């Protein structure tokens, strides 16, 4: 689900791959839920709701990507 572009870890699923984002976050050691108003899913853990995701026009970048 990831592609490294210019050293940044891009999620390839776009903004609506809810199951994949939840699966990916399930075992991520860096996951930290963002504040309530920035959460977009009902999942208990999802990359889409992680404070270390940085939205892009098409998807998001994992800001912990370089460390994982």
């Amino acid at each position, binding site marked *: 689900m990831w592609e490294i572009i210019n050293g940044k870890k891009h999620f390839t699923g776009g903004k609506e791959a809810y199951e994949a984002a939840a699966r990916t976050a399930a075992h991520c050691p860096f996951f930290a839920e*963002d*504040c*309530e*108003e*920035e959460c977009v899913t*009902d*999942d*208990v*853990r999802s990359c889409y709701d*992680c*404070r*270390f*995701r*940085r*939205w*892009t*026009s098409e998807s998001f970048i994992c*800001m912990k990507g370089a460390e994982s």
Partner: protein
Amino acid sequence: MNLFVCIDDTDNLDSIGTGALLENMMQEAALQGLGRSGFIVRYQLFIHEDIPYTSHNSSMCCTVETNDRDAFTAFCADYLQSNAAEGSDPGLCVLTDDGALDYTPLVAFGKRAQTEVVTKSDAYAAANAFGNDVRLSEHGGTGGGVIGALAGAALRAGKEEGKIKGKLQPLQNKADWTMADFSAAYGVERFADEDGKEIAEDVTIRYLLPTKLMFQSGKVTAILVQKDRIWMPKPKVKKNKG
């Protein structure tokens, strides 16, 4: 005097969010007797690789009633200077809330900030053209937060749609509500479906789960969904683990 207060770009990856910082700032202002604030509205701004932001490009705006605009504004400036996160680029906008003002040019700027890349120069040009009723200031880093701060205040002044910060929780052991009773108990001014279309007919509301309120058409709006012919505020609930 009534004001719109908006801040942006105050956080980093490890700090509290901008909404929480605005809440804290307004609580401190209230304790010091400088102003009383209302609910906070979140505005989504343009997501683009050329715009620096932490994880979401959004700004937070609330209304304030104060007797001393200068003292209140100075307090906000000092608070941001002292409490914004390291490495952030905080901006503050304080805008007069007056029904007699025509916010059209500022709203146009706010809408641009939601759909295209705009610059600090664009923000200052829009603010300067509006005159003394808007004050824009930078409080660290590049000060780029003035863009989102002005955009958020403008969108709020223009009664544009945004999300109200926080969840509304059921507070009473009562399942079914008339719309009038629900409005009186929870401060809701309008009911709409998920497409934003107003629900005008009087329906019974079953309220059991937390929900998010929206700011639509200048009003605090509850979004109702229908399930098995029962209307309920759209639930905002995290699933259980696993």
